[in-house]
């Protein structure tokens, strides 16, 4: 019916915390299209990471449904979810989450290893990806010897190893200086605009606004505003 990369319908999530229950998401509806870079913004504790985890099939919602590329994933078994994450979704984390004992090329190669590629081929493909993120010369460096921006570029190379339609990034620039942040954002924007991927970036860094096609504001687990960014079509309708 639609070509949404991700379709979130009436998703709620409540965490039990001792006797008290924390309501992290309250009936969220959201559609993200291919070729779109969306910023998900909101105060701390507003439910951004929770929403990203649910869209990334790492967390199950208490209510509602999530479809990725038209396939309903909410009902999938624990056994099937790793495949969904591997084949459709790329993750980028604030803390990079690289493997300190592996070189840059092996960190990226690991993503191919997960997909059953032979060692040599994995290594060749990983080298190509590192060149794409402009790190061809750092292929044998360990994460400890890379700058924050370089680490995040290795992480992006790893995230796109499976050629996913969706890339989910949680505060990808929070640990980076302004210049590195720009490089990373340009890479992610390129993925959306040149290769038609759906990119969701959680941030509360206003400097990233200029890269967004769309900005979604979330507060207390509900979307409070959803607008095309500067030069876009203005406010969309907001479910409340």
């Amino acid at each position, binding site marked *: 019916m639609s070509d949404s990369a991700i379709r979130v319908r009436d998703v709620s999530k409540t965490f039990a915390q001792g006797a008290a229950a924390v309501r992290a998401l309250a009936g969220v509806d959201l559609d993200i299209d291919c070729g779109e870079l969306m910023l998900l913004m909101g105060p701390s504790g507003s439910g951004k*990471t929770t929403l990203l985890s649910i869209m990334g099939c790492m967390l199950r919602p208490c209510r509602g449904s999530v479809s990725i590329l038209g396939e309903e994933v909410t009902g999938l078994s624990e056994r099937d979810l790793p495949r969904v994450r591997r084949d459709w979704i790329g993750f980028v*984390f604030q*803390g990079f*989450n690289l493997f300190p004992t*592996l070189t840059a090329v092996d960190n990226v190669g690991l993503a191919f290893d997960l997909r059953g590629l032979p060692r040599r081929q994995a290594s060749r493909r990983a080298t190509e990806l590192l060149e794409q993120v402009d790190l061809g010369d750092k292929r044998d460096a360990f994460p400890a010897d890379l700058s924050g921006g370089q680490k995040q570029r290795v992480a992006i190379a*790893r*995230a796109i190893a499976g050629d996913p339609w969706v890339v989910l990034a949680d505060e990808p620039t929070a640990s980076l200086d302004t210049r590195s942040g720009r490089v990373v954002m340009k890479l992610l924007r390129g993925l959306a605009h040149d290769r038609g991927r759906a990119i969701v970036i959680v941030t509360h860094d206003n400097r990233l606004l200029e890269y967004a096609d769309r900005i979604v504001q979330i507060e207390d687990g509900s979307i409070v505003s959803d607008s095309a960014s500067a030069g876009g079509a203005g406010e969309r309708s907001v479910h409340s």
Partner: protein
Amino acid sequence: MLAWRNLVHDKIRLAVTVTGIVFAVVLIVVELGLFIGFTTTTSSLIDQSGADLWISARNVPFIEQGTPFSERKLSTVMATPGVAAASKYVLRFAEWKRPDGGQDSVLVVGFDLQTRLGAPWNIIAGQVDDLRQPDAVFIDDIYRERLGAARVGQVVEVQGRRARIAGFTQGIRAFTTSPYVFTRFKAAQNYTVLREDETVYLLVKAKPNVDVEGLRRRLAARLPSIDVMTTAEFSRRTRLFWMFTTGAGLAVLLAAVLGLVVGIVIVAQTIYATTVDHIREYATLKAIGASNWYLYKVIVLQAVISALIGYALGIVIAVLVIRGSKESGAAILLPPGMVAGMLVLTLVMCVSAAIFSIRKVTRLDPALVFKG
């Protein structure tokens, strides 16, 4: 790849894991070797006798405990169809007087020179036929010093009678503290003050193709007042007595089990700690699409690599320990089957230890991957 890097990355922890495995392997190999050595030693006279059946007084619990009975039973045995050979045999304690005058207790083994059932083996000096001399005896190389008899031809005293060293065996260790002294039956009768018309055992060789159990039953029917056992049965009875009734074997087995438990605990603990240390990496692997199966492979591979290193080092150390103990007089055996079995045991130990930590990585907590 990741498994290996993870391991070598933390060299101290790898060293602790491997040390734990080495400790367990050495403990288990040495204790089991000791156990096998002990067991083999307790019944070596029976196992090496060449007899198919052992006839003794009623309810003899182990070979050293045989009591005399009338030698006239021998003719009944000989007359039984299926018997190829049968002869008298004695094993009894006696006093040994060294050339320097010191005394020691020995176990005199008297066998028949015609049938040679129960004759000494592994002979390194002299021949069995040398025992035809009325006062000739063989002792084992291990006890030369202790019995004060270093050379062939030396004269000693057994139970106040003259005895002459006619030869030496090698590696025939006595399980009790009393060394074996081999001699012909007639001489042994004198040394052990056995009555002229008595024997302690009758050893029977069955004719070829005769069913030994069938022969045992026929003999038992003809000899109601005494016991007829197959060699295997008597061997097992003797082993069981020394190993379990006395508790000697139990203690050794217990130490082996202890080694296994200590090994599992150390390995489980370190592998678990390693897993917890890398928990965020495992969570990341899951997030980017690794199946549980992939994570199991990484963890189990880590365990297997540690196991192989620990096993190799452990066996080398165990062999050195066993070599060293040869001189000190303990019998530790290391049969090839045990070396192979130990590899399997080490792998099982390490992999089952790894299973403890596998539970830790099967749940994916997004908080682990998304924290800054």
